[in-house]
């Protein structure tokens, strides 16, 4: 494959659009540090976990809208426009979450609490959970992503996804049932 040194990613993207997985993997690995540097430059005080989240969201968005990459156009401005949107989205969510949070006053006395049931509930690794989430149908995954991971309310999730509140409830219910099934923790 001929690679143009000025824009080595356009040929890789062209090949990826035709379904070439090797070219796509190469492209994603190549652009990951570029997105990382871009996010760092735009938001120098960001925590490493935030930067990682934005990089991953950018990669997911790139995947979802890869068909919008236009023939003959340079790849980098297209990619960075996506990254800029994910950065803004992430910061918006952070601001919204921080506005809802209240510092907890330290309690003066020790309270009795029921200990977590760690005996009957098998522990599930975060990686395994994410893997199972990634395999859910798109609407269920979107419901879990918006309400479970991003902690949006039903109304906000509905506005963002375009799904009705009822559809979101059904999708999240089904998603949770699928997750329980996957981990063998279905209600008896």
């Amino acid at each position, binding site marked *: 494959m001929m690679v143009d040194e000025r824009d080595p990613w356009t040929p890789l993207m062209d090949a*990826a*659009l*035709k*379904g070439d*997985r090797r070219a*796509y*993997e190469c492209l*994603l*690995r190549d652009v*990951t540090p570029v997105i990382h540097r871009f996010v760092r430059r735009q938001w120098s005080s960001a925590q490493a976990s935030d930067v*990682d989240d934005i*990089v*991953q969201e950018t*990669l*997911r*968005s790139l*995947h*979802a*809208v*890869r*068909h*919008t*990459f*236009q*023939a003959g*156009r340079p790849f980098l*401005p*297209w*990619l*960075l*426009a*996506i990254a800029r*949107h994910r950065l803004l989205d992430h910061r918006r969510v952070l601001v919204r979450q921080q506005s809802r949070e209240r510092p907890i006053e330290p309690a003066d006395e020790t309270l009795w609490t029921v200990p977590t049931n760690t005996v009957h509930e098998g522990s599930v690794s*975060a*990686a395994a959970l*994410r*893997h199972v989430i*990634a395999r859910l*149908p*798109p*609407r269920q*995954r*979107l419901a879990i992503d918006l309400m479970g991971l991003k902690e949006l309310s039903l109304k906000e999730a*509905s*506005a*963002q*996804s*375009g*799904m009705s509140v009822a559809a979101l409830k059904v999708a999240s219910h089904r998603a949770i049932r699928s997750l329980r099934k996957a981990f063998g923790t279905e209600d008896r």
Partner: protein
Amino acid sequence: MSTERVIQSLVQDLRAVRRLPATGRRLSLWLAFAVPPIALIVALMGVRNDLWERLGEGLYLAEMLVMVATGLIGGYGALAAGIPGTRRRTLLAPIVPLGAWIGLLAFQYGREWREVGATFWLDFHCIPAIAVISLVPIATMVSLIRRGSPDRRAVAVLWGTLAAAALANVGLRLFHPVDSALMVIAWQFGTVVVLTGLATAARGHLVPNAPARTAGSTPA
């Protein structure tokens, strides 16, 4: 999830996809769907009797041209908004014909005010007429916008609806006999503004934030 795992899962999910056609081609496609229904309604309603006479007037002709320009440039801006990295000037371009349109209406209104005073009467006929004529152009535009990236959906829906309503207004002016400036502003342009506002407010439902799935690809 580590970035490595994200990359692996995206690579596994990769399918060949059909690239989104160039914006100009999509605009042509939109016009191919949007113009015939407008023309059909104009034909059914019958063109106004004084059309040739009015087309000879500079102001009327200028207004028609500006509305056509708003339709074309607005449509282009709306479709280009679905492509990440589109230059800002392309996205802002529809402001020019829109500004010219508003300017012409204001000029017309000022002249009419000086010559005959304000003339205004209720004409609810315009509202359903524009809404009905706009229906197919707006629906087609929204379906085209949904194929693009949803990141700039507010801009896309704003310009897309404006473009559709502007083209519909061209059709309306071909058969609707009333041209009082205040009438045009209040009912015809007003309906365009209301339609555009409603569609932009409902953009989350019209263009979901869920990734616009690619043609030919199976959702992951």
